[in-house]
């Protein structure tokens, strides 16, 4: 295993261990998810709006908020511990640092999504199992795209005056492509539409992920102090 990857895993493990000890962020993300799902259910008129029409949007609003909460968590962890200084002194490369943090964020957001998804299926009566494979792919791709950019923005926002608010302002325009693509594909999947109808979105999302994963890796070092 190349040393960079091992370093990244080590950094991710450290982050996740810290999170696992306190668990507050994870729990608040879960509670928030359940709340959003419940509100959407109560706020609609079941005779006028079918659950199936609303379902993709609800799912992705929920996941987006979970993602933002995840990034905020990582962000406040950095701020509290000033852990970044310790990491910079370590022999880990900048790239390993970036991917370690991104990996930790991915695991966190992924864990929230893993619990939110069955909850969603439960509340909205959506038959997930027959499209589960493609759906998981869509969720994974969108999450990677979102977290890759978010981790980079987070490393900048942590050194600024407005902190978390700035993180949100910076990240939101970058959510458009992954979330809209994912929502579109989710809608097609739930409606059992053929692959040809959503193939273009898949390509767009894949292109986005590759472009921004590479770009963020390349520019990450500029967000660190010399």
């Amino acid at each position, binding site marked *: 295993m190349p040393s960079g990857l091992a370093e990244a895993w080590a950094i991710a493990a450290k982050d996740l261990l810290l999170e696992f000890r306190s668990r507050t962020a994870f729990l608040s993300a879960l509670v928030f998810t359940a709340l959003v799902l419940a509100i959407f259910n109560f706020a609609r008129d079941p005779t006028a709006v079918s659950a199936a029409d609303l379902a993709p949007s609800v799912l992705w609003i929920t996941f987006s908020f979970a993602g933002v909460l995840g990034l905020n968590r990582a962000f406040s962890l950095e701020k509290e511990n000033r852990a970044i200084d310790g990491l910079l002194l370590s022999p880990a490369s900048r790239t390993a640092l970036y991917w370690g943090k991104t990996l930790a964020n991915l695991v966190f957001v992924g864990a929230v999504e893993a619990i939110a998804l069955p909850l969603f299926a439960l509340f909205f009566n959506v038959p997930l199992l027959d499209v589960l494979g493609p759906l998981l792919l869509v969720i994974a791709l969108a999450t990677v795209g979102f977290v890759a950019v978010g981790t980079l923005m987070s490393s900048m926002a942590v050194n*600024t005056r407005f902190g978390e608010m*700035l993180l949100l302002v910076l990240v939101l325009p970058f959510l458009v492509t992954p979330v809209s693509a994912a929502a579109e594909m989710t809608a097609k999947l739930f409606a059992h539409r053929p692959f040809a109808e959503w193939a273009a979105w898949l390509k767009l999302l894949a292109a*986005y992920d590759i*472009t921004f994963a590479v770009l963020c890796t390349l520019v990450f070092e500029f*967000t660190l102090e010399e």
Partner: protein
Amino acid sequence: MTAIPSAERALRRGGILMTVGLVLVAGVYVRALAFTPEEATQGLAQKIFYIHAPSAWVAFLACGIVGVCSLLYLFLKEPRLDLLAAASAEVGTVFLTTVLVTGPIWGKTIWGAWWTWDARLTLTLFLWFVCLGYLVLRGAVDEPGRRARYSAVLGILGALLVPFIHVSVLLFRTLHPQPVVLQTSRPQLPNSMLVTLLLSFAVFTLFFVGLLVRRYAWARLAEARAEREADDADASR
């Protein structure tokens, strides 16, 4: 350290250029309103085009400058590139705002709705958010070196985001036919309208350059003054 003479010259020239530009914009206003024929199907509201389209062109030009300067800054580390990017972002935001204000007003007359997630306006909206984020980021970082680095990172990311948003919106619209009140294909512009449009493009670009030069020159002078004050504070310690 004294103030920079070239920047002071640029400040003056920028001031002249932007004033001339503004007067010429007023001239285009007169030409568009009084001396350009009314379009047959859309009526008077079509004339908004002579403000809207050139503003959009300038806004994208400004954002292009931000993107290029950001990229160059990361390689060359030249502070002037950062200041130019910042100036372009601020002036560009002004033009983006105009596009976002005139667009829906025109749209209301064509589409019957203020906002229809039209491909170009939606792209402009998100570009506006990115520019705003860029300006807020700059306001949130005090140290010039870090501010320049962070801005450059956001500038590059933002520039690369543009094609993705464009494709996202196009893809959405081709797959979801939108209800339209009046179909508007790009009309064949008769000569006088074309002349007005071209004049408008030229004049708005001139106005933009004037604003940009003035804003950039001022940024350089402000930076020099801040350095001077920091040096003085250090010296008196």
